[in-house]
């Protein structure tokens, strides 16, 4: 691991806790899913935790993010309530979106989380909008648009790069190249190319980032956010980190992945493990501290699942509310 500026202790703990929370959340959803209580389409983020965490821990509560269909990690990193998220994924009353959104539409406007999105790259233009809003209102808020490697082929993404460049918006595009779009490989759909040059072609500074290394992501994100906040316009980060699970729970057998690929990933490219080893080696954190965080996170997720399982369904009267503010 190359050297990156070391955050202070509170930050280090926050980083580790955030990544662990995402991991535990996703592993637990994966375990619960076959039980049949979780409805619908769930796309797990495990393996990519360093990206959401590295990016979101340099944001303030007022900054905005727009997420993807694989959005749990972004939501957790942006500070969404984990129990309310779990309730939402189970479709229960008290869920972050009242059970009307589900995994693919988790949003929390109060925390600047403008929503997961069921449409590939569908949220990216929204980010241009929140960036424009900050600019017009004269705040220094920054917007982050997350997008997958597959979603980065969408016209809406390309157009958003253009608009951000032309309007010099305070925005950071974070591409998460996890090697796959459903079962299709980036070697096919990007011709094995990086996304970074697409931004550079428009004059947008871009960098390829090791998405397993949370401090590398954090450093790149800090620079990009700083540029955006100070009026320097958009940046693109092209982060590489494969997912641990299949595209969607209950959907694919991952026959398209190389034999042993996921085992190797978990053994050698686990962002949590890499961070923990470093943190212990360099004596940033102790084994006891790590164990304590792990235990606390596990309790948090246990609690969230329990709450979700015992919560009620939304009241049927909710069916026709929230279509409009007034009609």
């Amino acid at each position: 691991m190359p050297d990156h500026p070391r955050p202070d202790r509170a930050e280090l703990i926050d980083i580790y806790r955030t990544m662990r929370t995402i991991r535990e959340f996703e592993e637990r959803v994966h375990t619960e899913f076959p039980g049949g209580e979780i409805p619908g389409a769930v796309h797990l983020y495990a393996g990519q935790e360093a990206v959401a965490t590295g990016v979101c821990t340099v944001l303030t509560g007022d900054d905005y993010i727009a997420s993807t269909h694989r959005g749990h990690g972004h939501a957790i990193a942006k500070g969404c309530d984990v129990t309310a998220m779990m309730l939402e994924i189970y479709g229960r009353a008290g869920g972050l979106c009242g059970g009307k959104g589900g995994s693919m539409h988790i949003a929390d406007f109060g925390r600047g989380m403008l929503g997961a999105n069921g449409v590939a790259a569908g949220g990216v233009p929204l980010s241009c909008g929140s960036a424009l809003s900050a600019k017009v209102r004269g705040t220094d808020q920054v917007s982050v648009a997350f997008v997958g490697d597959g979603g980065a082929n969408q016209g809406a993404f390309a157009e958003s790069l253009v608009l951000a460049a032309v309007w010099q918006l305070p925005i950071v595009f974070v591409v998460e190249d996890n090697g796959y779009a459903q079962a299709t490989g980036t070697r096919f759909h990007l011709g094995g190319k990086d996304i970074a040059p697409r931004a550079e072609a428009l004059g947008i500074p871009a960098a390829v980032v090791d998405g397993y290394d949370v401090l590398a992501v954090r450093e790149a994100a800090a620079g990009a956010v700083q540029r955006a906040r100070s009026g320097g316009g958009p940046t693109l980060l092209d982060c590489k980190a494969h997912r641990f699970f299949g595209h969607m729970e209950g959907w694919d057998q991952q026959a398209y992945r190389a034999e042993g690929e996921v085992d190797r990933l978990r053994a050698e490219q686990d962002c949590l493990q890499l961070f923990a080893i470093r943190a212990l080696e360099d004596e940033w954190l102790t084994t006891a501290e790590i164990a304590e965080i792990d235990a606390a996170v596990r309790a948090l997720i246990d609690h969230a699942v329990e709450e979700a399982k015992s919560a009620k369904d939304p009241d049927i009267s909710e069916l026709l509310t929230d279509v409009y503010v007034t009609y």
Partner: protein
Amino acid sequence: MTRVLSYLQAVGEALRQEMQHDPSVVVFGEDNIGGTGCDGRLGNAWGPTQGLHEHFPDRVFDTPITEAAFVGAAVGAAATGLRPVADLLFVDFAGVCFDQILNQAAKLRYMTAGKARVPLVLRAMYGAGMRRGAQHSQVLYPIFAHVPGLKVVLPATPADAKGLMAAAIRDDDPVIFFEHKMLYFSHGEVPEPPYVVPLGQARIARPGRDCTIVALGRMVAEAEKAADVLAAEGIECEVVDPRTISPLDIETIYDSVRRTGHLVVADEATPRCGVAGDIAALVAEHAFHALRGPVRTVTAPHAPVPFTPALEDAYTPGADQIVTAVRATIPAFAGQERAS
């Protein structure tokens, strides 16, 4: 002290007054200023935004030709404190940004159980008559009216254009604001002070007891012409202009049909799954017993809009077809029609 403005000027005045009134209103689209990035003069905007940037240089923007991005940006900006008015130019271009309208703007509030508010206006020029061909002459509002979460506004007069635009901008939901290109240079009285025409309230453009004509957008004037012709024959038509088709003031239509017993709906859109059928079906379901003859719809044919004037003029419905439809639904006259 009457003051006459064109429909185009009326829209422009509403934009200016609302920007004055509320600093969160921003306006953007292709050439909404006009000339940005050129060596000549700014201000080559066409339409109601002409000159707006001189009053509000920090709140009017030109965009690149990136409808998906800038309509999506309107959604994101609306959800984070602005009231954007984005300009699609021709409504036909909704094709290139339809996801942002259908799946983002329309659904964000519902999917978040009311956490989001999306107070945006999307200006869209529509309709046939300008010899622009199939890709620049569509009506398309039925498509937007079909989508829950959107509001669809359709002013027929300069006064309504101003008042409805003000209402659309102040409204907290996403509004698609349809401006008929052939009405831009129609004129009418428009009060100068800011005012609002509430969304969801139909206007009785002309009262009458024999037959209800519900007319949309440019068809309102055609219905009025038809009503003149029919009045000479002793048929008094009531012309109802819904002004907004989502929400739809269906009660005013039911009331009218309960009085007249007959319904003709005149709509410039193509017929299948259109607003004409929508209104006709609502009446046939909920005011069936008031009907004393078949409902009649007058629409464009199920065909794209042809380019050449000879065909385009034949394509667009007008007063003549409305007259024929009214006669055909009133039994006594329907008999005459058949005989003739």
